[in-house]
C-alpha cells in the first residue's frame, strides 16, 4: 500500500487564469493515469491525476472550480499537504502510432502518458482541446516533446472540438490505439464514432476513500470501482458500462445525470 506523506509544495506553475500545476519533491512510484488524494487537513481531500512524475518529483495540475481547489490554487511554495497514492489503474503503454485526445483540465495526465509512450518508442499524436486559447493547457510542454500536437479551440474563428479534430485524424490515418481524457460527454461522443479502434479512457467518479473500500465510485452494472479498477478503463470494460455518459453518483451515492459540462467543472 502506498503510504500517506506530508509534503511541502516545491514549485507552482501558472497554466491558465484558473489552472495551476503544483510540484512536490518525492520519489513517488506511479504510472500515467494514476491519481493521488490530496488534503490540507482543513476539511476535504480530493483526487487529482498526476500530470507528471519521475526523477524524484511529481506534479498535479488543477482547475479552480470550488472551495477545495480554490485553497489548492491559492497555496504557496512550502505549504504542506497530506498526499496519498498513487492509486488506481494506469494506461497500458503501446509502442505503435497512438492518438491522445484530451479536453480541458484532463489534458495534463496525457502529458505524463506521452513521456512514457515516447520512452516505449511510440509515435504519439495529441489532440489538445480547450474552450479558448487562454484555457489551453500544456501546449508548450507538448511542443517540447517529439510528437505531433493539434490544438482544438471551441471559440476560435473556425471552432473545432477535440472530438471533431480526433475523428478527422482517425479518418485519414491509421492508429494502433486511442487514449482519451476529458468531459464524459466528450468521451462518449468520441468512442461512439471511433469504429473498431482499441481505446482507453480516463473516467472520473466521486471518490472518497480512493482505495476501493467505501463504494462511492462504483460503476454500474459491473460494480467495479473507478478508484481501483479505474480510473483508466479499457474498451472492453467501457462497453459494458450502462451508466457511462448517462449518470454518475454524487457524494451521498444518489444517481445524478452526467451533464455536458467539462471535467473539473462538474
Amino acid at each position, binding site marked *: 500500500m502506498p503510504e500517506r506523506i506530508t509534503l511541502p509544495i516545491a514549485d507552482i506553475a501558472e497554466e491558465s487564469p484558473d489552472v495551476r500545476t503544483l510540484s512536490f519533491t518525492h520519489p513517488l512510484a506511479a504510472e500515467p493515469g494514476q491519481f493521488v488524494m490530496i488534503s490540507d*487537513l482543513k476539511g476535504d481531500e480530493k483526487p487529482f491525476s498526476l500530470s507528471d512524475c519521475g526523477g524524484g518529483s511529481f506534479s498535479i495540475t488543477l482547475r479552480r472550480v470550488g472551495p477545495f481547489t480554490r485553497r489548492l490554487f491559492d497555496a504557496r511554495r512550502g505549504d504542506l499537504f497530506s498526499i496519498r497514492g498513487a492509486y488506481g489503474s494506469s494506461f497500458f503503454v503501446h509502442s505503435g502510432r497512438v492518438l491522445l485526445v484530451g479536453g480541458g483540465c484532463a489534458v495534463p495526465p496525457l502529458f505524463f502518458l506521452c513521456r512514457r509512450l515516447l520512452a516505449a518508442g511510440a509515435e504519439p499524436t495529441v489532440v489538445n482541446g480547450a474552450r479558448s486559447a487562454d484555457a489551453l493547457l500544456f501546449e508548450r510542454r507538448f511542443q517540447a516533446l517529439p510528437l505531433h500536437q493539434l490544438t482544438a479551440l471551441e471559440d476560435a474563428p473556425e471552432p473545432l472540438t477535440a472530438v471533431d479534430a480526433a475523428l478527422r485524424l482517425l479518418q485519414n490515418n491509421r492508429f494502433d490505439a486511442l487514449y482519451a481524457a476529458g468531459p464524459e460527454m466528450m468521451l462518449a461522443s468520441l468512442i461512439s464514432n471511433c469504429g473498431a479502434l482499441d481505446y482507453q479512457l480516463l473516467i472520473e467518479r466521486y471518490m472518497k476513500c480512493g482505495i476501493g*473500500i467505501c463504494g462511492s465510485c462504483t460503476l454500474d452494472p459491473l460494480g467495479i470501482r473507478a478508484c481501483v479498477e479505474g480510473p483508466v478503463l479499457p474498451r472492453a470494460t467501457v462497453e459494458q458500462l450502462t451508466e457511462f455518459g448517462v449518470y454518475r453518483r454524487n457524494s451521498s451515492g444518489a444517481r445524478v445525470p452526467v451533464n455536458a459540462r467539462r471535467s473539473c467543472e462538474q
Partner: protein
Amino acid sequence: MVTKIPSGECMDATLRTRFLELDLATPLVLPAGVLGTSFSSLLACARCGAGLVTTKSATLTERTGHPGPVVVETPAGLLNAVGISNPGIAEVLREVAVYRRHTAVPVAVSVFADSPADFAELARRVSDSPADLLELNLSCPNVSGEFGAPLAGSPDTVAAIVAAVKHAARLPLIAKLSPNVTDIAAVGRAAEQAGADALCAINTLGPGMVIDTELGLPVLSNGSGGLSGAAIRPVAVRAVHQLAQSVGIPIIGVGGVCNAVDAAEMLIAGARLVGVGTALWSGGIELFGDIGRNLLAYLNRRCYPDPAAVPRLEPSHA
C-alpha cells in the same frame, strides 16, 4: 477437541449455511458500509462468493457524510469516518430492488437513526422492500458529534430500539453491536431479550485518531474514526466468543477477517456467519472466492461437513 491433522481427507464438505431461515451458499458476508452503496457493488460481491450482502447503512433522508479525508491507514488497520453517507432509504431500496432482479443471493439492509421512532419507520420501509433481512446499526462511532454516544453503549437503549423495531418490522432483525463497551455480552443479551433475531459483532473499534505531526492536525476531517481491519481481529474474536456464550441467537462475526484461517477462527469463536470488510481494500472482492475455497479445503481436511459443524470453543475460556 481435535489434536491431530486427520490422515484421510474428506471430500464432501459444503459451504452452505442456514441463517435465519435463509439458505446461504457461503457463510461469508459483505458487512455494512464496505462498498454496498450501489446495486452493482452488492451484486459484484454476491457473484464473487458472498453468501449475504449488506447495504451501507441508510438513513431516512440523504446524507453526504463527512468531508475527506474519510479514511486513513493505520498499522494493520484502517480508520474511517465516512459519516453514514447515503442517498436516503428510498434510493437505497430502489438499488436493492435492482439488485434483487439480478440475483437471489440474500441481502440485508442496514439502517441508522437517532431515535426508536425513526428506526421503526426505517424498519417499516425495509419490510416493504425485496430485502431479506434488516440490520440495525446501533454502533456507528463516527457521528457522535451529531448524535451523541453510540447507541450500543447502553443495554437499555439497545433494548428500546430493538423492541420498537421488532414491533414495526416484518423481517428478521440483526442488531449490530459496538466493541466500545466494558461488557458486550450484557448488550447482546439485552438485544436478544428485546427480540433481535441475530447479532452482528463487531462494528469499528475505538474510535481512534491519527494526527499529522507536520501539519499538527488530525488526518480525518472528523477528527476521529472507527478502527477496522486485521488490527482489531483479536478483539472481534473475543467479542464473538463472549456473545456466543451469552445468547442463543446466531452471530455474524466481523472484524479483521482476511483469509480462511481467520474465518475458521471466527467460526470456532462461535460465529454462524463471517464478515469480510476492510480486507477487501487490499484483497479486492475476489477475496470472497479465495476465502470460500480455502475454507472449504479446511472443512474437508478436518472432515467437518459444513461451517456450522466446526466445533466451537468451550465456554470456559475467558
